């Protein structure tokens, strides 16, 4: 634990820098993972399905939060990459399933291809039958697309609103593409009816991947690169004047996030057993944005919390009042944007950070802004002793608004 100190009139202000993976956060993550991983032993299958799905979606929300909350790129088409990953895996599973289980008409090609008059699997798609090829494709092609997109736009200082609108259109076009070319993609109905990996062991794999990706994001955002990204988010012109090639940082983080979204999509396809055009479209993209926003876009754990809360509420509410869900979602959008732009975790982290800052000030004996401290603040500072609290360790203090 290092201490940064600064002097004014002899008094010293001590601010502790948090460790990369504080003990409390490790314990918290371990507890959550343990609960989720053992759930199939005592829970119902229906809820297990939901939990696996939510974890996949939370990785997707994390990818949005990484580019939006930490780098200031609002993409309304992140589901493109999620969908690409999902389609690669679904196609692969479907092709190998079809090869072993002939359809009603005796063909060994996926049933939807047969319905659309294809005689055999197109040569470009045939290698996807091997899962290894599909996984390599899943890691490579979404990243490549993100790279191309990033080079075209970020290098020309196109981001913010323009980037959001273009990515939205991109998602819409991909969706129409998938519906139109149904002989290859399954069209409106999507790809389904293949061998799914829907058991406890695959849930463990999903959780393992999620832990690795959340950890990697934490590493990334709290490294030097993360600091540069945050400065780019807050003031890109100043970052550029400080000598940083802003576009390259943006391209890098966009590629990384897109690959993450693709991995989430691949896991989702294997888990759910159905992939359709809805998994690539603007609606899922924007839902992901709201999950990240509700949890806290500039936190690592926020997307996880946001996804579980919003998606869980959706499943709970839509059973009771199906029509009301959209209304709730709309109101939630407006509420979060207007009154809680930092999200749940971000708001909590911010208040903790403020308190810690105040107590650090108080430790200096009132040399810094002591006149603004109330007696209660001083007492709290004495009792807290300037130590970072449990919540602070758990959630980090990146509660800044982007």
């Amino acid at each position, binding site marked *: 634990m290092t201490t940064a100190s600064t002097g004014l009139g002899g008094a010293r202000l001590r601010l502790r820098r948090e460790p990369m993976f504080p003990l409390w956060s490790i314990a918290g993550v371990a507890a959550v993972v343990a609960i989720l991983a053992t759930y199939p032993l005592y829970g119902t299958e229906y809820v297990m399905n939901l939990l696996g799905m939510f974890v996949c979606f939370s990785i997707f929300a994390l990818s949005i939060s990484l580019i939006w909350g930490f780098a200031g790129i609002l993409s309304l088409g992140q589901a493109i990459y999620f969908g690409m990953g999902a389609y690669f895996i679904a196609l692969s599973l479907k092709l190998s399933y079809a090869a072993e289980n002939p359809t009603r008409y005796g063909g060994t090609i996926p049933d939807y291809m047969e319905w659309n008059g294809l005689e055999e699997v197109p040569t470009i798609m045939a290698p996807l039958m091997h899962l290894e090829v599909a996984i390599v494709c899943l890691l490579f092609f979404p990243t490549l697309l993100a790279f191309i997109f990033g080079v075209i736009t970020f290098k020309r200082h196109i981001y913010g*609103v323009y980037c959001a609108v273009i990515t939205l*259109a991109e998602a819409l*076009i991909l969706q129409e593409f998938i519906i139109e070319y149904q002989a290859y993609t399954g069209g409106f109905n999507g790809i389904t009816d293949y061998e799914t990996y829907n058991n406890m062991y695959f849930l463990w794999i999903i959780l393992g991947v999620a832990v690795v990706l959340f950890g990697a994001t934490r590493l990334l955002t709290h490294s030097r690169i993360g600091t540069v990204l945050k400065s780019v988010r807050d003031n890109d012109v100043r970052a550029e004047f400080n000598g940083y090639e802003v576009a390259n940082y943006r391209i890098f983080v966009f590629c990384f996030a897109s690959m993450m979204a693709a991995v989430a999509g691949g896991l989702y396809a294997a888990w759910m057993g159905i992939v359709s055009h809805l998994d690539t479209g603007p609606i899922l993209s*924007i839902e992901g944005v709201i999950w990240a926003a509700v949890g806290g876009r500039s936190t690592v754990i926020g997307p996880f919390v946001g996804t579980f809360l919003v998606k869980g509420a959706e499943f709970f509410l839509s059973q009771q009042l199906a029509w009301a869900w959209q209304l709730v979602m709309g109101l939630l*959008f*407006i509420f979060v*944007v207007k009154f809680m732009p930092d999200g749940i975790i971000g708001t909590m982290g911010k208040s903790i950070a403020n308190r810690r800052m105040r107590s650090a000030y108080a430790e200096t004996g009132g040399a810094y802004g002591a006149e603004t401290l109330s007696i209660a603040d001083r007492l709290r500072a004495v009792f807290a002793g300037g130590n970072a609290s449990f919540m602070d360790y758990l959630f980090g203090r990146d509660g800044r608004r982007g």
Partner: protein
Amino acid sequence: MGDAVLTQFFSGFSLVAILIIAALGLAVIFGVAGVINMAHGEFIMVGAYVASVVQSGLGGNTFWSIPICFVAVGLLGLVVERTVIRGLYDRPLETLLATWGVSLILIVIIKMIFGTELHYVGSPEMLQGGFPAPGNLPFPWYRLFLILLSILLLVLTFILFFRTKFGLAVRAVRRNRTMSEAMGINTARVDMLIFAYGSGLAGVAGAVLAPIKTVSPTMGFPYAVDSFMVLVMGGVGNLLGVPVGAAIIGEGETILAFLFNSVIGKLLVFLLIVLVIRIVPRGIFGYQERTLGHRR
């Protein structure tokens, strides 16, 4: 072949006109107030429903519903601006999300009032039929009406912006908000009225779209995305951006959809848009800012 492409070229005019009418309100709101109104498509949808009420309830035709829709959706825009947008002006990206919430709510409300079934609105009797045009297909009168209306709306907006005192204030706010405020212009009021005006234009778009499209609660979203594309292509620095952007996108989509298919057409036009903003990042008629700070 050349003849058929010519026919497509003429029928593309109507798509261009629709795009102009739909994108004009959005351009005004984005250009002046800097607000990304994702609910624009749903404003168009509400306009179409108002038109269907005007027809079935009051017995009026499109000529009646245009002013009624303008006022009704303009008032709706005023309410949305007062309740949701207010206080978000310095955060354009968040207006995008908040107005997305508005669009979800509008869809639910319309579904509750009118149900999910499709509504049909007829075009006025005097605009039915068509006249012979170059190529083989007759050119419908209604499409000519759309083209004339789009030109009329552009001219009216031009007059509002460049020949009235309010327009002077609008242009001043657009150029330099802080300075305009210092000169005594009530910028909050300008934002509010511009938002209402842009919403009213969306209402007009809904009124004239209702007879040629089926009216359903989810009809708006594609128009919103197309309108955004027009803005990205044309830029919002100049009123000319809207017709030029709409012309390129509308004609491009129509002709390419004829030559290949509609999805390939859309894809090619999208690639063209990306190419254009790669060269001119703020659109063809983008407002060149003299500051290094990029408009978010």
